[in-house]
């Protein structure tokens, strides 16, 4: 039962992160929001692991951490390039690639 309440917390965290992705314009903040979501997933894994009394959940959490770190590092490298080229971190300015139908 306890693990379920942790799961609820994780879910709330996840949705918060999602809301952050939706509302934020700055790429860095979006990355942070995604981190929150990833961590929420991690929490859920830990909760699940706890429920079944297995270490697998925690193992997974470690993998998530590693992966999140690598993702963020690549992400930040790209952010720097974006800033170089666009002089902004506003994600809505990044729309050179889109459909333009010429009839």
């Amino acid at each position, binding site marked *: 039962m306890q*693990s379920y309440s942790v*799961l609820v917390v*994780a*879910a709330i965290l*996840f949705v918060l*992160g999602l809301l952050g*992705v939706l509302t934020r314009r700055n*790429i860095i903040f*979006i*990355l942070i929001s*995604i981190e929150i*979501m*990833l961590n*929420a*997933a*991690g929490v*859920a*894994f830990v*909760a*699940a*692991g706890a*429920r*079944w009394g*297995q270490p*697998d*959940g925690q*193992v*997974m959490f470690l*993998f*998530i951490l590693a*992966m999140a770190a*690598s*993702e963020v590092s*690549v*992400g930040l*490298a*790209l*952010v720097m*390039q*974006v800033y170089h*080229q666009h002089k902004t971190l506003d*994600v809505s300015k*990044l*729309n*050179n*690639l*889109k*459909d333009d*139908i*010429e*009839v």
Partner: protein
Amino acid sequence: MTHEQLMALLPFMVLATASIVIILLIAFRQGHTVIQVTGFLMMCLVIFTMWYVRDFLPQTIMPLLIVDGYGALFTGLIIFCVLVVGLFSYIYFEEREENPREYYILIFLSTLGAAILTISRHFISFFIGLELLSVSLYALIAYLRTRNNAVEAGVKYLLLAALTSAFLLFGMALIYMDAGSMDFSAIAQKLHTAEQSSPLFLVGFSLMMIAVGFKLALVPFHLWAADVYQGAPPPVASFIATVSKIGVFAVLLRFAQELHLQNNHSIMTIISVIAIFSMISGNLLALRQQNIKRLLAYSSIAHFGYLLVAFLPGNSAGVEAAAFYLIAYAITILIAFGVIILLSAKDKDAERLSLYRGLFWEKPFVAIVLAVALLSLAGIPLTAGFIGKFYVLMAGVQQQAWLPVIVLVVTSVIGLYYYLRIISTLFSDVSVAIEKEKKLHPFFYAASYTALVVLVLLLLGFGVMPATIIPGIKQFLLIGN
């Protein structure tokens, strides 16, 4: 870990070594050509080892991996694609005078990720494979950071991929919560004993579908595809279109097979709805597209919609159909991107359709090759694409999934329009000479052309004599079943 298990993993280890070898080569300041050749040889080695260890299969490496015929088949396909992509990459990067060397590290890493996906039987290996694939791809997409909006494409892909990864993880966590194991077969067992699938499982699976759908660019997670295909260098785009999608589709298929998802009515409904929407919007989006890379992206959305139709039956015929379809599709896409790469000028990729006007009269060979590829995408006989589509329809009809099948037929008729549009551009009268500097590396050009010829011959060969490959596929799939 037993000897047999180690032997079974040998190809994957070689694949992993490839990246390290390249790193070492870079450390020793070797040139592009050496790296290219080494990479090529390494990939050949992978295939060789796979052939070498064929007698040890199947092997289950508890709890993460299972190396069976199915995995070997898809890994082989992936390695084959990488071979071709690598070959094409050489002239592309060489012409752009960028430093292309780290590119090979990334591409082999990414390949490793895809290969792991094909043999994973556990959430953890699933997750690791997927992330290995994705993280390398972020960098690959933005590799030519100064041009072509590559960075924009990279950022878009990264944000969305990370977002959907979060969903994947959360979904996995939910399923783990429900089933008490992350092992596919254990989950299947749990699911089997339960009277009806719990909401936790269903929600978990739905969330997982988001990530998978994203990678396969299925509607409504498809919006990135066109932008990324357009922004990424063509070799990378072809890599995404083939290797990444094959890997993810392989794991999805294995997961579904293991869990007997075809018996789960609601999940099947979801998948068929996704398939239908993918077919419709992929084809509709491509209808008037003037950028050939975007067009290929949209067409791939549609094609994975078709593939899902084959996925629906969930029996061996479906797997066989999917395998054949993927082979045909991979060859075709490689040809298409190969042509784009060959035609790309130094500062601009050959992506505007107007560049292709009257290509047939300028470079008949390239034009014919591209036309054959497009006909294959359209599923016209004499090409493997036709047999692929035939397979898919067969699977659909057998399952009497009439709605998706009818949608498939209707949308592929719509799709025909834009393929024909390109073909008619190729054969139109007014020819715009594609200015092309002198060929810097005649050997690699020759090699690329040879690769195209081989691919086209394969495409036609499989189209006319599918009997040459179908038994092979069947045999592979039997291993481990």
